[in-house]
């Protein structure tokens, strides 16, 4: 596995909302292939002329059909549907313009979910990247039981999120949950982690970090193993401390991976809501409602597909803008080997 792979999630057609979101991720992911051995220069057409062009398009066709069908078309259809009312029984959909978006401005739950998601992203992204990097540096070294340690770190990634959430539900259970047993032994008072508006979002963040740090570690590990040991030797000869070596040599070389992981973490912070279903269902009083969960609720509990489409478009726009800014700012500072 190298960091040049196509993000795995882009291949999963998990519903319209996710497919729409994935389109925000697939594209930004593409330039990252630069992290791999430099891509071959644009293929010189063997035969100039129309037949060569036809062959070129034919070769592109299978991938294009899939991309258009499962990524671009759903995104466009979502935007189109968001301008109509939801058809119901005998009442067909009618054009309502931007009414759904206007509704969103007055929708307190939407704003709450948006803020929650922002905090969720701020809470999970830097932490999980830092932990992933630390774990990768740790298991990259020569130490006994290295394989076992790597596996242990990677295990949470392999488990299905629903199963994970069910386990964590009992970790957080007041009184006899694992967490309570530990804090109780240390003499702290009992706390209802998932039942308190103040702690519920933090509690779900911990689960997300635990789940995805191991996944990001794999990318860092792969990148670390491609870095030539001569660099470390040269740094040692120059008398650089370990921190200097990390700060000035290793981290800059890992920048393409960091960028890739950053984009993935951002997408995950919007995409990963499975544990919300199991652990809190957005409660108490929307304190843990995230955007995608709210979209699901509007779409499949309230059956208001038009409003759900409008919400999806907004999420898509936010993700698109963020990815754009990231590439603009970070790509300049990223050193590709």
């Amino acid at each position, binding site marked *: 596995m190298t960091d040049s792979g196509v993000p795995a999630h882009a291949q999963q057609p998990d519903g319209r909302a996710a497919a729409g979101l994935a389109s925000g991720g697939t594209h930004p992911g593409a330039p990252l292939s630069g992290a791999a051995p430099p891509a071959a220069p644009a293929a010189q057409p063997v035969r100039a002329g129309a037949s060569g062009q036809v062959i070129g398009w034919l070769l592109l066709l299978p991938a294009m059909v899939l991309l258009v069908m499962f990524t671009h078309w759903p995104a466009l259809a979502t935007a189109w549907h968001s301008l109509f009312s939801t058809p119901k029984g005998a009442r067909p959909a009618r054009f309502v313009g931007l009414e759904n978006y206007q509704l969103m401005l007055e929708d307190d739950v939407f704003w709450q979910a948006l803020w929650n998601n922002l905090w969720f992203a701020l809470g999970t992204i830097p932490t999980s990247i830092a932990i992933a990097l630390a774990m990768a540096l740790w298991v990259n070294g020569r130490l006994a039981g290295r394989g076992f340690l790597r596996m242990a770190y990677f295990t949470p990634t392999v488990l299905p999120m629903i199963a994970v959430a069910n386990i964590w539900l009992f970790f957080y259970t007041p009184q006899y949950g694992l967490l309570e047993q530990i804090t109780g032994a240390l003499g702290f008072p009992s706390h209802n982690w998932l039942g308190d508006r103040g702690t519920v979002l933090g509690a779900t963040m911990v689960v997300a970090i635990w789940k995805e740090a191991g996944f990001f570690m794999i990318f860092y590990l792969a990148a670390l193993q491609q870095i030539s040991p001569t660099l470390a030797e040269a740094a040692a000869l120059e008398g650089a401390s370990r921190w200097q070596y990390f700060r000035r040599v290793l981290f800059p070389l890992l920048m393409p991976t960091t960028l890739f992981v950053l984009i993935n973490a951002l997408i995950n912070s919007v995409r990963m809501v499975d544990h919300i279903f199991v652990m809190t269902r957005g409660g108490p009083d929307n304190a843990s409602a995230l955007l995608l969960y709210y979209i699901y*609720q509007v779409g499949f509990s309230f059956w208001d597909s038009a409003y759900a489409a409008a919400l999806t478009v907004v999420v898509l726009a936010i993700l698109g803008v963020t990815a754009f800014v990231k590439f603009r700012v970070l790509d300049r500072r990223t050193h590709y080997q």
Partner: protein
Amino acid sequence: MIRRTLLQAIAAGALAAALPAAHAQKPVELSFYYPVAVGGPVTKTIDQMAADFEKENPDIRIKPVYAGTYQESIVKVLTAFKSGQPPHLAVLLSTDMFTLIDEGAIVPIDGLASSAEDKQWLGGFFDSFMMNSRTGGKTWGVPFQRSTIVLYWNKELFKEAGLDPDKGPATWDEMVEFAKKLTKTDASGKVTQWGVKIPSSGFPYWLFQGLTTPNGALLMNEAGNETWFDKPEVVEALQYWVDLSAKHKVMPGGVIEWGTTPKDFFERTAAMVWTTTGNLTNIRTNAGFPFGVAMLPAKKQRGSPTGGGNFYVFEKSSDEEKQAALKFIKWATAPERAAQWSIATGYVAVTPAAWDTPAMKKYVEEVPQATVARDQLEFSVAELSTHENQRVTKALNDGLQAALTGSKAPEAAMKDAQREADRILRNYR
């Protein structure tokens, strides 16, 4: 002459043989979506039911499709309906009725059940189960797997606290009084055993109805376009719920998880819990102590909401298929079947006749607690169900959780919930 009769006999015989054969060649195929919401081998029981039915009715084929939880099932059914191929029949929440009607997805049952015998069958269910199956003078669903809320108590802990182990709390005041005696704290002031737990995650509105009903308040009208969340009785009921933790300190603060409540009971960290009758089999298997089951405590009267799933018959199928679907529903809710289903799952058998079957009588002898739910039906009301059901329920759920977590006062929370419900329902008045 002889030859002629012989020929005739052969012809008649062949004809007679051919007729059922022709029938058997073209059985009516019905797809049947069902959810699983309680523990136990429900899938196996349903498959067995379908097989038994086919044996008695060779001209009908039932294809049971396990569709996930209740929520997943209605998503699948409505998606299938919108793509033009709904199942012929399905078991979905009784509260989904208005949603299904608004989508134009289901047909009224009394339109299909037209014979006198059919009418008698439809009149044979417990009336409190029918409240969630009727609106606008029509019957849209047939009760199948239905439940109510009951109170489970730990007899050992009652004895330890000096209470009569054979008597559950009968009134609101008694529940607080018992719970105070049952709440234990250790030397550091940490509570090790709570008096009572009423779960409030996921669908707190349902458990809340266990408080509003005894206080004499209904939450909505039969037409499903009006709610009464800010009535004084409703606010009073919420105040009582909030006070259990805020004032009396006999219930943990914040939102209590529904899923772990039975476990809290097994672990003896809660002496009394409120949960569905559907958990009876679960608690019987896992509680390592004698326990009692009581009706929910009374304020002005007894009361609880009903819950659970109904059979629905879907549009876009032929008359023949609809009649076949009705035949299966009638068969599945016949007294012996209803008794068998109740014993296998813990749901309340849906007709009084089912309780008179020998199998049920034997079960009641072994598990006398099972009758509590039945006896409570007399005081039960319909589960909250309106047009735009999930949206309206969410408005109430949010208000309840806001009050229970202390971020809003009960009255303000219920006013907000009512305002939101009014906004959602204005198009249906």
